[in-house]
């Protein structure tokens, strides 16, 4: 049985802040920063947007593309995020209720830094392939937190993407998936802390590159594929530089990465990052083209997926707005309004 993506949907809040406006506040040189991280501006949620609202918007777009799938046929909803609105009370129940999937549905929030939703996709693949359900949905959404003045403030953004997994009406087949996981102290947030912490020297080599490269290699070895078999490669995008370096280590061309490299314009949407990159690729891919996607979550782990686009893509992607529309739908905020939206002022 062919199993894969039956519907996908993206959502990015309208507001942006430019790196130069953040740099001005902290007395840093904007040019040096943007050259260093390859991010020029990032998305910012409105005061009334959070992970639940972003997840619902993305999921509604996924439903539009999953033409003909009835809400009652979706029997699993997973929401992956590191900014769930409640510490206790699932985001997934609000999403399930807003989409009319309740009550005969399993729902849960997943958490694994930026790769929580690709873990949800793997769970859906298993449930669908095992014959337990017809369709499952996994959504990655975040309103990423960063301490004022921290380096993360230039990239921590908001956005999300939703994927409906099934065996009927597949617009992109998932031929294989595998994971690579280790305990790495690169990035964490303790219970009750408002902002995450990171250990600089662990971020690159032992964390991001180790998991992304080994996981991608392992999947290609299992499937007997090589970088030139893929038209596109999508990686988690903590900044504009890391995905390009990972691609070059693995033997991919820059041209295979750039269509998914949306981080320069919207920042790192955490759990939404690799999934929004994949959505940007699905917005333009031709039938028969292959995509390798590898997510990354701090702590640390990666999930890799090998995907082949089917001939259903062209008709179905037109049923909802593309990622590029959301990237260009924007309005700029000053640092002070940004600080208000992100609740940096506290009583």
């Amino acid at each position, binding site marked *: 049985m062919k199993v894969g993506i039956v519907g996908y949907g993206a959502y990015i809040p309208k507001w942006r802040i430019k790196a130069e406006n953040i740099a001005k506040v902290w007395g840093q040189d904007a040019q040096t920063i943007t050259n260093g991280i390859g991010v020029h501006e990032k998305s910012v949620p409105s005061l009334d947007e959070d992970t639940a609202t972003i997840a*619902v918007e993305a999921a509604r777009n996924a439903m539009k593309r999953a033409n003909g799938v009835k809400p009652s046929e979706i029997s699993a909803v997973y929401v992956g995020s590191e900014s769930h609105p409640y510490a206790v009370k699932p985001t997934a129940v609000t999403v399930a209720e807003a989409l009319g999937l309740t009550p005969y549905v399993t729902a849960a929030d997943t958490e694994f830094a930026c790769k929580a939703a690709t873990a949800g996709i793997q769970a859906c693949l298993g449930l669908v392939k095992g014959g337990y359900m017809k369709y499952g949905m996994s959504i990655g959404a975040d309103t990423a937190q960063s301490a004022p003045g921290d380096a993360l403030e230039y990239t921590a953004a908001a956005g999300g993407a939703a994927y409906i997994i099934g065996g009927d009406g597949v617009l992109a087949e998932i031929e294989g998936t595998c994971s690579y996981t280790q305990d790495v102290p690169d990035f964490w947030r303790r219970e009750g802390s408002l902002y995450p912490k990171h250990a600089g020297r662990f971020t690159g080599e032992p964390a991001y590159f180790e998991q992304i490269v080994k996981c991608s290699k392992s999947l290609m070895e299992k499937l007997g594929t090589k970088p030139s078999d893929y038209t596109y490669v999508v990686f988690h995008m903590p900044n504009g530089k890391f995905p390009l370096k990972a691609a070059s280590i693995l033997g991919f061309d820059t041209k295979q990465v750039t269509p998914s490299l949306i981080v320069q314009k919207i920042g790192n949407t955490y759990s939404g990052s690799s999934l929004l990159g994949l959505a940007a690729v699905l917005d333009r891919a031709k039938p028969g083209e292959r995509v390798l996607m590898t997510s990354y979550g701090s702590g640390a782990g990666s999930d890799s997926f090998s995907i082949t686009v089917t001939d259903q893509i062209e008709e179905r992607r037109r049923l909802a707005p593309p990622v590029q529309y959301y990237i260009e739908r924007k309005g700029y905020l000053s640092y002070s309004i940004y600080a208000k939206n992100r609740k940096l002022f506290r009583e």
Partner: protein
Amino acid sequence: MSATAPPAHWRRMRERYRLLGSRCETCGATFFPTTKVCPKCRRKGKIAQVEFSGRGKVYSYTVIHSAPKMFEQFTPAVVALVQLEEGPMVLSQIVDTDHKELKVGMEVEACFRKLFEQEQSGIISYGFKFRPVNDHWGKYYDNKDI
């Protein structure tokens, strides 16, 4: 008990999440919020639940500069009467736009937002608000370089 307490939240949750209203199967009239009786057909009426499309037009609006406590952070906030394409009139905040750009007759669509929070540790109420419609995104698929 405040309007955002769990019982009040729970009672109105589904209609706020999904813009659910009522339709009289006898005369075709639509209602929001939901109703149990069609005022025209009375006992001959047959009421069914309907999920509205979320598309509508701004019938009238006002800009609020001095808002009640839960909405202070949104000022200047736009609150509008939106006439849904199915007929009912809905009162809602209009988001993702500057109040200076708003016009009577403007096309809007429902989006999913936070409505209010019961202080920092209380329940969060979600539901529909409206934003201006943009139907031009189809053009991105005709441009090969998206």
